[in-house]
């Protein structure tokens, strides 16, 4: 059997644990090693599974590895992606792809020049309601898309996520990119103009935890999105990914995590929503692996990552200047 040899670079982002699980459960994947400057963080993954540990990405990249999964702090995505691409490894990079237009375009260019694929980790594409919505929209069930309203609200993360040096931004960067990617995907268009608010309204932190992002797309569709870290600890779940799409012939609503049980337990002392729907990370990992094994293009590319992250970057500029920001055509 054809086996994909995968290395994992950094577990700074907790999604690495889920990607590890899905990679490790595939027969056609061999996890060759994990590189992380913090050995304690990855020991629960390396030791029980007999997987090699490397303290640097460079060491890991010297191994016979076909592809890498990068879950570092946002600020290191560009450096690690380019390093991996130059070692001829395919890359799946955690979102947001990068922290500036220039570095993202360079990541894409280096991967292209080295002949490796670059996938942006947008698992929401693999949610069954999202996939069904895409089919419905492409069939023309709701006619032409006119407008959209998105929500990706969450509880506030901790650690490097709220350190601008390492994260590059707060809620607006962290929680705009997923839904913007879905908006790009559904409209088949990309953003042309962004007007946004960004601020700190919910927590005592030195980074944005609240925002409202208005987007105009090249094809005339307009949209608004709330990326705030506005879920309190009493909220029954971590957050949401919701999208309402207004079409000329109907309205389509996606509530990604509404496949849930309502749980009332004295042990939690608050209501809880227990999601029982399909795991989107599994779909993402499967697409990465099978695409590479079959030599097909991955479903979510570096360009996709760039097209959504640049909206978040423009949102910060708009929030600073108080004016709409036009995106240069690419």
């Amino acid at each position, binding site marked *: 059997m054809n086996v994909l040899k995968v290395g994992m670079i950094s577990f700074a982002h907790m999604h690495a644990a889920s990607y590890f699980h899905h990679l490790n459960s595939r027969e056609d994947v061999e996890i060759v090693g994990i590189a992380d400057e913090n050995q304690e963080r990855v020991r629960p993954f390396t030791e029980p599974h007999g997987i090699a540990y490397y303290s640097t990405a460079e060491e890991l990249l010297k191994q016979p590895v076909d592809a890498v999964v990068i879950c570092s702090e946002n600020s290191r995505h560009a450096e690690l992606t380019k390093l991996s691409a130059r070692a001829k490894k395919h890359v799946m990079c955690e979102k947001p792809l990068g922290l500036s237009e220039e570095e993202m375009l360079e990541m894409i260019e280096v991967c292209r020049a080295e002949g490796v694929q670059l996938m942006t980790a947008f698992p929401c594409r693999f949610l069954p309601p999202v996939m069904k919505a895409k089919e419905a929209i492409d069939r023309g069930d709701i006619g032409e898309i006119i407008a959209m309203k998105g929500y990706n609200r969450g509880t506030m993360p901790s650690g490097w996520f709220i350190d601008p040096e390492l994260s590059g931004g707060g809620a607006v960067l962290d929680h705009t990119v997923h839904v913007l990617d879905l908006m790009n995907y559904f409209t088949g268009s990309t953003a042309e103009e962004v007007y946004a608010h960004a601020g700190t309204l919910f927590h005592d932190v030195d980074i944005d935890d609240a925002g*409202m992002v208005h987007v105009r797309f090249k094809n005339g569709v307009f949209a608004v999105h709330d990326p705030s870290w506005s879920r309190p600890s009493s909220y029954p779940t971590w957050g949401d990914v919701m999208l309402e799409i207004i079409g000329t012939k109907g*309205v389509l609503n996606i509530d990604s995590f509404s496949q849930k049980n309502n749980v009332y337990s004295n042990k939690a002392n608050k209501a809880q929503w227990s999601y029982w729907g399909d795991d989107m990370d599994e779909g993402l990992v499967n697409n990465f692996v099978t695409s590479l094994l079959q030599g097909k293009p991955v479903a979510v590319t570096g360009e996709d990552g760039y097209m959504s992250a640049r909206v978040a970057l423009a949102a910060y500029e708009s929030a600073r200047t108080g004016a709409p920001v036009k995106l240069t055509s690419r």
Partner: protein
Amino acid sequence: MKLSIIGAGTMGTTCARNAAKLANVQAAGVCDLIKERAERCAELCGTTAYTDIDEMIAKEQPEVAVVCLPTYLHKNAVLKLAEHGIHVICEKPIAMNEDDAREMQEACVKHGVRFFIGHVVRFFPNYRDALARVRRGEIGEPGIAHLKRYSAYPTGYDGWYRDQGKSGGVIVDLMIHDIDFARALFGEVKSVYASINRSESMDYAQVTMEFTNGRIANLTGYWGYPGPFTTQYEIAGDQGIIQFDSNDVRSLDVKLQKQGTEAGASVPVPSSPANHDPYYYELKHFLECITTGSEPIVTAEDARKALAVALAAEQSAKLRKPVELEVAP
């Protein structure tokens, strides 16, 4: 208190039903250009139907009149009533533009009559509960609100809603409820940004209000929605969240077996029955304000400011830029 109703459409009819329920109210004429409509409405509250407003005022000598006319007719009716020394309760939106609104406010002050605008959402028990809890600090310091109001395209007499020059469109007529409520929640508005899509079949708008205290509200309004009339809101604060979705309220839900071969003969609509509708509480409150001389929970000034925000939103959508509001002195 002798009360006249001007305009016997949907709102006038609602007012007539509620006037009949209020013990201290004596219905004193219903006026509408369409005689049959005026008669039907007058019957609901046991009074006389008129097609001429001057005749009604002369014969009935009302102390208060409720103006339930299309928006573009508010100004003339209110000015006339004020001149006759009659207190005015007028449907929202207050007027088509701010100058008219100010003129109406000034005329009422000049003639010593009270002037109320029916921003009825303030009297909906769910909105009242949410506002009270926010004001009690239950969600801590509020940060972001989402407010949504979707309905079918309203018809009205002669299709006046579809004429933007008469109704103002979905922001000025429908979303203004949520603009007013957002102001009640968060305070004065600093700037507004809006996007609108208008066509034969729909009028849809997204509006973001930025408040002077940094809080943000995003409102969506839709005429032409294919689903049931829907209102939703979420108010998020640093200590909690309040959410509401009208589609979740099904305190009474009846499902009927199909009768014989008549497929889909009945459309089951879940409902939220109550002792009184919010218009009843609104009318009762405004009449109490007249009797006691107290301030209403929503003033004509609030109504004018909500209109200013709505018009600024229209302007923003045209200019594709945020529009700053005049900060109140």
